[in-house]
């Protein structure tokens, strides 16, 4: 087991800089998730760790070794691709053992490793099949098996669940989570654009945007203490509500002129108030008034989209049996945790009461 250290890592394709100096320190045995919108450079970063992309600047170390100039096979990493990348003309067994055989490992040892991986992944009944005869989930398990047999120091996952349907995605997500424990806490780096996958799998999440790290931390830290509006908006579903604030001598005003109650301490520099859906509640004296435009009933919660007096749609979460209908006028109070951001979108220290 080894950690992975990225120091000021940069990547440019021609004149375009896609990774603009990234420092990340991944501990041995950690499950680290790179998350961000498409085009943020998360896959490129992973491929640089794998050795599939050159590193334009900075250094990548696995364990104590600097691996910038090592071939992919010498880095001690194994990768699971979004499209599985199984060899279509080989059986499951041969797919998993092919790399080892080609590198001269004795047949018995290869067979033993393949059998072990197949047991872990419950693929024993499918060893003689070709990928064509497998379902998407099984194919992805074979791809994971191909990584396991190499016994790598670091597992790299490049959006492994994106090609699966919703139900399988949840099931496979659980399996990957269990696998991490089963493999004695192997170091895993996992790339996804899905913040739910990031929240559920990660020991630590790295949020990336435009080739830069926005924030690194455990899932709940990112959820509760986002460093800026980008992270606040990206982590958590539904998306956090952002409300413009106008500072006044006594506190702050909402766009429609309502003064926020003193219960919400406002730093003088704050221009944006962030409120998650679960921090809004019915409150006859609350500061926010609006009309319901859409009601989403999810069974375990009801989300109401409320059009406020200043023409902004904000979302609030209610208990499952709450009676709300489209067109109702609601008055909402802010009771939970709130977030304040300055003009640059950086979070201001909370002085929560």
């Amino acid at each position: 087991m080894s950690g992975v250290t990225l120091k000021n890592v940069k990547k440019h394709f021609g004149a375009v800089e896609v990774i603009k100096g990234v420092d990340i320190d991944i501990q041995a045995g950690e499950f680290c998730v790179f998350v961000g919108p498409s085009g943020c450079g998360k896959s490129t970063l992973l491929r640089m760790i794998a050795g599939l992309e050159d590193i334009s600047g900075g250094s990548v170390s696995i364990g104590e070794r600097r691996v910038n100039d090592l071939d992919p096979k010498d880095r001690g990493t194994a990768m699971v691709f979004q499209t599985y990348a199984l060899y279509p003309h080989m059986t499951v067994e041969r797919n998993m053992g092919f790399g080892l055989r080609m590198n001269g490992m004795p047949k018995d040892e290869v067979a033993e490793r393949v059998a072990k991986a197949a047991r872990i992944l419950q693929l024993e009944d499918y060893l003689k099949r070709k990928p064509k005869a497998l379902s998407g989930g099984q194919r992805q398990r074979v791809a994971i098996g191909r990584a396991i047999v190499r016994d790598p120091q670091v597992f790299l996952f490049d959006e492994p669940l994106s090609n699966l349907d919703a139900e399988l995605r949840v099931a496979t997500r659980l399996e990957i989570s269990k696998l991490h424990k089963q493999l004695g806490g192997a170091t895993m780096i996992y790339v996804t654009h899905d913040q739910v996958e990031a929240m559920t799998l990660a020991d630590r999440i790295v949020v990336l945007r435009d080739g830069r790290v926005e924030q690194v931390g455990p899932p709940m830290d990112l959820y509760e203490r986002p460093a800026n509006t980008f992270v606040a908006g990206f982590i958590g579903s539904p998306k956090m509500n952002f409300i413009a604030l106008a500072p006044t001598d006594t506190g702050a005003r909402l766009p429609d002129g309502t003064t926020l109650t003193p219960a919400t301490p406002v730093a003088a520099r704050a221009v944006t108030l962030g409120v998650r859906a679960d921090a809004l509640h019915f409150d006859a004296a609350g500061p926010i008034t609006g009309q319901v435009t859409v009601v989403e009933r999810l069974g375990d919660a009801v989300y109401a989209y409320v059009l406020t007096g200043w023409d902004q749609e904000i979302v609030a979460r209610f208990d499952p049996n709450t009676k709300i209908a489209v067109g109702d006028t609601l008055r909402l109070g802010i009771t939970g945790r709130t977030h304040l951001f300055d003009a640059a979108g950086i979070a201001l220290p909370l002085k929560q009461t």
Partner: protein
Amino acid sequence: MADATHMPAVRRDPFLSPRRRRAITTVILAAICAVWVYPLVWMISASFTPNTEIFGNGGLIPRNPTVENYTRAWREANIGKYFFNTLFVTVGSVILTTIAAALMGYVLGRRSVPGKAVLMALMVFTLFIPQGFTIIPVFEFLAAIGLSQSLWGLMLATCGHSIVIFTLLFAGYFSQIPKELEEASRMDGIGPVQTFWYVMLPLAKPIVVTVVVMQTLQAWNDFLLPLVITLANPALRTLSVGVYSFRGEHFIDWGGMTAASAITIVPVVMLFLFLQRYFIDGLAGAVKG
């Protein structure tokens, strides 16, 4: 014709019932087929008929069937020797062409090569030059490297006929294979040559079969190139040139010629029967791409 069964009952013409339509179609197709096959059948028939009776208007079934044409062609007219010449040229050129075209197609289809567009354009351009214009330079070239009087020279020259098309076929096919496969094999520590041999080439099986079949046909049936190269050296003749030699100045040995022709086409027909499924797959795949 089959859609007739899906038509509503009202529109059904009692005379042209689906069954009759099928019968009529079959008759028409059979007639066309007979015209198509007649020359071949005549050739087979003539090859079993003594020379004196061939044009004796005896119909397609020989009155006094004989295999004497075959023995004469095989022994006296050297068709046996020509058969093995042709086999050598064909097998050699198929192996060389397939390997070379696959390797070139792999690079052109998957790697970024400087000047790739120019290279491809030049290759396509050569397709438009008729063989007649290049045959003398090819012969000169073979003479310069001392191969103009050997089967090896003929075999090498035969490789050149369609290698451009084969290369483009391979390039088109390889360019569709997802790059993750190569990346996966790189992660597995498999070198480029092994990746080509164990991963890429097996995936290109339909194209390999297509190229093998097309090059076999081409090499086996080629006439102009072997004619020019073997002009001064009858021992190197291939079958197609050998068959032509039954045409004497005053007399044409039709029996011998048709027997030799029959010997010539049998291997090709057999090859096609064995490989036709893959062959058609490969062509269909290439068109799809």
